[in-house]
């Protein structure tokens, strides 16, 4: 699909870049507005998201909502849904706009090393689990 095709959409110009199959479900968007969704950002579906279940959400959105009934990391969500990470991020941005999911504050601020008692617990867990 190219911008100079006869039936090209007006939004698909040279600036839009190439469009590939997976991104059809995302309306051609390759990135959400912000890099809100780090690999280890936890998201969870909201009650509003459950209620609006049947409205204008695509099946892909619903699949993510179903998996996010409990808090789940973006990476895990992508893996379980079987959608590429970039696609999941765009769909999550839609769901966030709709108020259907919320991002949870991380237990440790990004770039910070966890408390030593956590690291010690991890070491013991690795050795004895």
């Amino acid at each position: 699909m190219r911008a100079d095709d006869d039936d090209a959409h007006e939004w698909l110009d040279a600036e839009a870049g190439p469009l590939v199959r997976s991104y059809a479900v995302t309306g051609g968007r390759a990135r959400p507005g912000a890099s809100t969704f780090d690999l280890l950002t936890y998201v969870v579906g909201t009650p509003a998201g459950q209620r609006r279940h049947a409205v204008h959400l695509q099946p892909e959105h619903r699949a993510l909502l179903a998996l996010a009934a409990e808090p789940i990391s973006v990476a895990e969500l992508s893996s379980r849904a079987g959608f590429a990470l970039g696609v999941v991020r765009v769909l999550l941005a839609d769901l966030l706009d709709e108020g259907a999911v919320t991002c949870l504050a991380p237990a440790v601020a990004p770039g910070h090393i966890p408390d030593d008692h956590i690291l010690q617990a991890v070491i013991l867990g690795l050795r004895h689990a």
Partner: protein
Amino acid sequence: MRDERARSVPTAIKILVAGGFGAGKTTMVGNVSEIMPLHTEEVLTSAGTDADDLSGVEAKRTTTVTMDFGRITIGDSAVLYLFGTPGQDRFWFLWDELAIGALGAVVLADTRRLADSFPSIDYFERRGIPFVVAVNCFHGHQPFEVDAVRGALSLDPDVPVVMCDVRDRRSGREVLVTLIEHVRSITMGPAHSAVAGA
């Protein structure tokens, strides 16, 4: 975007597993954790287009990269997430995102192809990401001493070098313990007391 349920989010710890193609990354992630495939789609760069013949496939400008991704749950408080870095250099652009917020990295080395681990070591050294070198002895006897490997890789003296067999769950997990102890010694100084139970 804070939420009442924030309390239920465990401490998520990101660890990278790097090394050359065939060094045992997939085997290690699979044996120490619950492994799940993770697909990313990335726009091909010029570096990538050299490798893939795209003539006649004009719409195809992205490639799917599958990473090894694993999870180890530690009680209710912490979850380790392991990410196997793509083994091919042309996927270097994925690393930058993977590296963000990583606690540290394991560089798997195969002494038959030691040079394959140079790009990983360079990468983590330049970004100041703590790492350990784990020499995978999966092909039987490992003829080199730790010091010989350290010398061949020109490693700083404080970078841990350990022998391991990534086919063995306990051995792989002990490599992760070495990494976390290394991070603790960097954070708290070398005088910290090691966690008992070895």
